[in-house]
């Protein structure tokens, strides 16, 4: 058998682009593209608008806007196939276009990532299935960066934990299955949390079904024997650790997300902060979004690894960003000055060749200085610091009731609701629910402060188990003492804080020695769990000081899976699992022996329910330390932040006198911010 190629996210990107362009090529002539709004950004990650134009795309519309015109004979819809309302919307537009148009149209639908029975049924019932050419565009993972793959399911958090809709779990499993089929089985599937367990079960099941489904000859069994380039896959359910993303992110990229918001690697910032784009055409024209930025004073900024300066800054703590920017500015300056020293024409030519690079860097430096200034301005406010103080006190295990007054004051001062809710949720999660009396008091404060519609918000948060009374049946199993007792129903932060050393007092932001730097002293639990698997030695060395000795017994270098931390892991919520996928033929073992253990293998870290930028930064920190042995690829259902989690629960409407719904939404945003 040919050696299996290692995994590169670039392959995913290439394949996605090829698939899309191939389908577009199949539609003859010029065409109108109609995309689901939520897919616009992700598609922009894989293909540039100019490329689409080369493939005959004349105009791009958003499906939700319902303004598709009849200018082109070919109309191509691209939407996610999982939900019925996309199919409904497409059916509506097709009937509308058929009614309005003088000449006949050709309709094509590319379902992402797969054609579903449900959408077929809906189209059939609307009577348009016969008029459309239906194809599948199997885009599961969108490569956000060279080490990050995301399904970009914006609603995955709400779907999974509020609506209890397991679609994201299924899609994750399908996406991972795709990787397995190409690169071989994950030799080990380890994970924590109920949804993670579900993904793992589905993977095993799909493998069985694949075995049952096709009697592939002996020729290509790549997909069915363990890979020798992949070490394992680690699946973590967001539910295991809600607290981490609820805390304010303190890395540069994390703060950009907190302050401006990042969508599909892009953030929109006021031009007064970062300056106007250099030239309208030159601006990262990647978004497949329609060019509508005529009057808006916002500028879209691409944030990914292709920007060298951003690459340096993104995962550092904000504290050091200023210094780094300074250093970069000086380096650029001196590089640029080097032109005076170049004597020969050859040297000069060399310099001129580098010139475009300098200009790009200059540009990017200007942007990031602007961004950093704005962020520092934000973090300097009284409000921010008060919030941060309360958060950190709670995370560090201070008596929650001591923070009572501070929270009350924040509400009285009309701090943005998501921020307040984040605090309360941290409070509830860490202390395992809130005393009924306090809870009622907080709830009153919230609905008085922000409106009675938030009765619904509070109800949603309770269903999410993020903000609930201690007396609630959901909270009753929470072990409150540090003792080893009932386990597995709720994450016991009090216990884990000690066991896994979540609080590191002496953090060095300049030259970090532990992942705790990302929160200036709090090490994300989710990532500590990953360390339990990947960095046993290190984790033992830092936890031993806490008098926790039960783990050290089996901490031999060869220990795999959760070994050594079984006890600690039991105190986190959800099921724990560790599956080994063995191949059927003995040849695998031989091959594994032959290939030796020396080379770098890939570890997939999968976050079901979303991952925050700080956690990504922490994982990259681990990846750097482990570089010699492993490559870490991060997979997730979406990028998440505390604000996005709160938005999933928040009721958007208010009692305001009804103008169109959108206006109402704007005004609530105003009143809360």
């Amino acid at each position: 058998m040919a050696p299996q190629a290692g995994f590169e996210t670039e392959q995913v990107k290439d394949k996605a682009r090829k698939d899309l362009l191939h389908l577009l090529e199949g539609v003859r002539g010029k065409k109108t593209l109609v995309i689901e709004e939520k897919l616009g950004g992700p598609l922009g990650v894989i293909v540039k608008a100019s490329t689409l134009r080369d493939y005959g795309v004349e105009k791009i519309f958003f499906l939700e806007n319902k303004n598709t015109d009849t200018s082109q004979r070919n109309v191509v819809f691209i939407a996610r196939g999982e939900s019925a309302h996309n199919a409904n919307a497409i059916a509506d537009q097709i009937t509308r276009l058929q009614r309005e148009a003088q000449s006949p149209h050709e309709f094509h639908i590319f379902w992402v990532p797969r054609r579903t029975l449900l959408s077929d049924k809906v189209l059939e019932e609307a009577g348009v299935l016969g008029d459309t050419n239906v194809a599948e565009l199997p885009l599961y993972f969108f490569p956000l960066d060279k080490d990050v793959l995301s399904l970009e399911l914006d609603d995955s958090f709400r779907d999974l934990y509020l609506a209890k809709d397991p679609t994201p779990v299924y899609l994750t499993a399908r996406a991972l299955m795709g990787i397995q089929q190409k690169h071989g089985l994950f030799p080990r599937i380890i994970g924590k949390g109920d949804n993670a367990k579900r993904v793992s079960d589905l993977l095993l099941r799909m493998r069985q079904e694949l075995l049952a489904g096709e009697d592939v000859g002996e020729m290509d069994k790549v997909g069915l024997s363990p890979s020798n380039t992949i070490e394992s896959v680690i699946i973590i359910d967001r539910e295991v650790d809600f607290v981490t993303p609820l805390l304010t992110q303190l890395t540069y990229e994390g703060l950009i997300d907190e302050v401006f918001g990042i969508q599909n690697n892009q953030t929109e910032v006021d031009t007064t902060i970062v300056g106007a784009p250099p030239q309208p055409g030159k601006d990262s024209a990647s978004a497949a979004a329609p060019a509508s930025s005529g009057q808006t004073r916002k500028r879209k900024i691409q944030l990914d690894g292709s920007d060298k300066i951003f690459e340096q800054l993104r995962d550092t703590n904000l504290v050091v960003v200023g210094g780094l920017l300074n250093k970069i500015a000086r380096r650029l300056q001196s590089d640029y000055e080097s032109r005076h020293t170049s004597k020969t024409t050859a040297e000069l030519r060399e310099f001129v060749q580098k010139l475009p690079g300098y200009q790009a860097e200059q540009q990017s430096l200007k942007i990031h200085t602007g961004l950093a200034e704005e962020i520092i301005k934000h973090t300097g406010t009284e409000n921010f610091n008060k919030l941060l103080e309360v958060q950190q006190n709670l995370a560090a295990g201070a008596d929650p009731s001591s923070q009572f007054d501070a929270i009350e004051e924040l509400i009285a001062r009309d701090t943005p609701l998501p921020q307040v809710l984040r605090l309360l949720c941290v409070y509830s999660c860490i202390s395992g629910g809130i005393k009924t009396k306090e809870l009622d008091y907080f709830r009153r404060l919230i609905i008085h402060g922000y409106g009675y519609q938030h009765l619904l918000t509070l109800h949603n948060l309770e269903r999410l188990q993020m903000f609930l009374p201690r007396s609630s049946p959901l909270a009753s199993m929470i072990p409150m003492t540090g003792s080893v007792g009932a386990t597995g129903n709720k994450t016991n932060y009090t216990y884990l804080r000690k066991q896994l050393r979540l609080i590191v007092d002496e953090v060095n932001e300049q030259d970090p020695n532990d992942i705790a730097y990302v929160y200036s002293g709090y090490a994300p639990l989710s990532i500590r769990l990953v360390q339990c698997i990947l960095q046993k030695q290190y984790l033992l060395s830092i936890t031993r000081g806490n008098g926790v000795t039960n783990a050290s017994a089996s901490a031999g270098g060869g220990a795999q899976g959760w070994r050594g931390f079984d006890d600690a892991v039991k105190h986190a919520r959800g099921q724990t699992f560790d599956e080994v996928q063995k191949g059927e033929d003995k040849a695998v073992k031989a091959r594994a022996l032959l290939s030796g253990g020396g080379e770098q293998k890939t570890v997939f870290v999968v976050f079901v329910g979303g991952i925050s930028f700080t956690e990504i930064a922490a994982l990259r920190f681990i990846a750097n330390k482990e570089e010699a042995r492993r490559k870490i690829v991060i997979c997730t259902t979406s990028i998440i932040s505390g604000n996005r989690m709160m938005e999933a629960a928040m009721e958007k409407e208010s009692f305001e006198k009804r103008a169109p719904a959108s206006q109402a939404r704007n005004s609530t945003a105003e009143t809360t911010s």
Partner: protein
Amino acid sequence: MDVAHPTVGWEQLGERFYRKIQLYTQVFDQDLDLDNYIVVGAPYSGAIALYRDEDKLVAFQPTKAFKPSIDIYSCAGNPIRSIPWDKGSIKGLGWSEDEKLLIVTADGIVRCYTDLQGEFTQFSLGNGSEESNVKSCKFYDHGLVALLNNNSLISVSSYDEPRPKLLAAPPQGQVHSWSLIPPAYALSRSVEVLLSINQTIYVFDASECVDQYLDIGPFTHICVSPNGKFVGLYTKTGRAHVITSDFQSPLSEHDSKSKIPPKYFEWCGNDAVVIAWEDEVHLVGPGGAVTKFYYDSGRVHLLPDYDGVRIIANDTCDFLQKVPSVIEEVFRLGADSPASILLDAVEQLEMQSPKADYNIQLIRPHLVEAVDTCVNAAGQEFSVHWQKQLLRAASFGKSVLDIYNSDDFVDMCETLRVLNAVRYYKIGLPLSYEQYQRLSPSNLISRLLNRHEYLLALRIAGYLRLPTDKIYVHWATAKVRHSAEDDDTICRKIVEKLSGKPGISFEAIARAAFDEGSGRLATELLNHEPRAGRQVPLLLSMEEDELALDKAIESGDTDLVYFVLHQLRRKFPLTTFFRVINSRPIATALVEAAARDGDGEGHEDTAMLKDLYYQDDRRLDGASVFIREALRQPESRTAGDKLALASKLLMDNTKENAFELGALKEAAVLLRMQEAFERDLGDTYTGLSVNQTMFKLIRQGEHGRAKKIQGEFKVPEKVAWWIRLQALVASRNWHEIEDIAKQRKSPIGWEPFYNQTLQAGNQRLAATFIPKCTGLEPGQTMTMYEKCGMRTKAAEEAVKMKDAETWSRLLEAAGRNTAEGREIERIGLAVFRR
């Protein structure tokens, strides 16, 4: 030697040779008059369909009842199946690449016989075919184009999901003949049609119609070469033209000197065209070279294939093709190629002649090439004797070589074994090597399955290491359909044979059983299906609804669950539907999620949700629906009504829902109060929260009303103070703030007052709060004063703190010569005397 030399039957055509290979003899009964039949053959030496030509008169034979039928034969003339036909006049009969038989009737009905056994699907061409009727049809790999009597062209590009599409509107006029370029070879990647109208040719695709401006027409025949690059045209006057398919460069011309229009005008490979009359076949090559064949047994039919033409007559089935270059290299008379010498060497070896070694030495430098050629030539050879001879030569040659990669040799041996097996007359698939490569082994196996040749299919699959699951499933399906045994026996037999085999789709077998009307057998078979998801659609059609739902949930695929729920929702009354989903949390969650989504525009399916929550006794969730409805009300009054409904739902359990009930009541009260304010004060208040209402009232100076709100809603004192402070600062009501400052105590301390007023820019007022602040850190007062611009005060504090450093800094900042500076100096001198 009793085996004819391969060159027997070669004909020279220009510089190249063509060969006619007799594949089978005694193909059809002598009394079958082929002349009366339309004969079409599937590509890649597939089956042949015969249908009586409706235009021909037939002698009435009283002994034979005449029943129209379409008869399918193998190339060797073995009958495969006869399909009785009573659906009216057939206007198109053809095959797809995967051996589906297509029948198009005059009124535009297309029947697609998916296997050779009579299973079919049917669809209509539509687009006006019912009114103007189909005139004729042309077929390609997996699609067809139909020409209507009004010259409209309808294209179908897939039989799995047929979407008949009208091509560009054609000009009027009589269509003399027509043809098409398959999408795979057309520049536009969609099918292109060539129509001969008047003197010229029109080329069509989906959107446009291009006149090629020819003036040599009209053409009675048009044919497109298999690779789509060339077009053959045959004029009324008996001239044949070959031209590139873009109609730019004419390539050759030939005058058949015949007044009678030929029956066939087809390509033979990509280099020559064949013209056939009743019993005469002309082969026209490049540059107009011609060779002729005569058949004395009567009428011949041509079945064009990718690399040649099959010629069918009653007593023979021949294959006419260009002699492959490797064969020519080896066998051409007087050939002196290394391969030919190698072949000679092995013959010498058999005769134990030393010349064998001499030959080898002669070609030593080219031996690898010679071996390769022999291997390839073996593939192209139909005679088993010569195949063996060539392989022997190759084997001999490679034994002499030190290093030779034998993979090709081994592959070829395998391939030839397969080819010879399927060429056997009882199977009747005379594939050429080229055709086999294009068809692919797995498609060959499905062809065998269509012929129910299970054993051979299994052997070949095993031999070539191909999947066998489809073979077993096909066998079992056929068994279910045709077996006369009782259900239990069938099931037992199938399970016995198939258990333990990977990849068996019991679902497919079960579906076959269900379609045959045997539900019980279907259920039993379905139990053996390992893939839960696969069972769902069948279970649904078997009305095993709850089982289907369970299996869908088990599969983890939410699409399946949604699909089942969608079906059930349509089928059952609501109560039954709820009963089904209640015990299944995932199903309930998905129903809820879908109802919340509603039509995707924020209109949730509230009726459904209310019913669902009510019957499930989920009061809080039910109340939420009402609250959301309340939020959507345009007026406060109706919103209040909805809130009341929400409260009513929670009334049953006042203790547990005390908080919610209280809040709902308050919400209604607030709405009423806000309405009153709006009436009295003429400003909008609705939509604001309690705190925001207070804020706005204070800002407007309505302190009394604000107090009323605070009392009504029991706003905590601290919160109220904060609101008051912020509102007063926002309205720059310094006077009021000063009044407050006169009070002795503030529940929020005085620091916020200092901060807020300072931020609002009133330094003077801010300073008045500094002395009132308690619990400050030592030295903080200095900075506080300093921020207010009161350096003197700050200096006083510094003196109190004995902080010389700050004092001198303040002094510097003020400047020694200003009044302020002197004052500072004066205060400090007493303490910090140097």
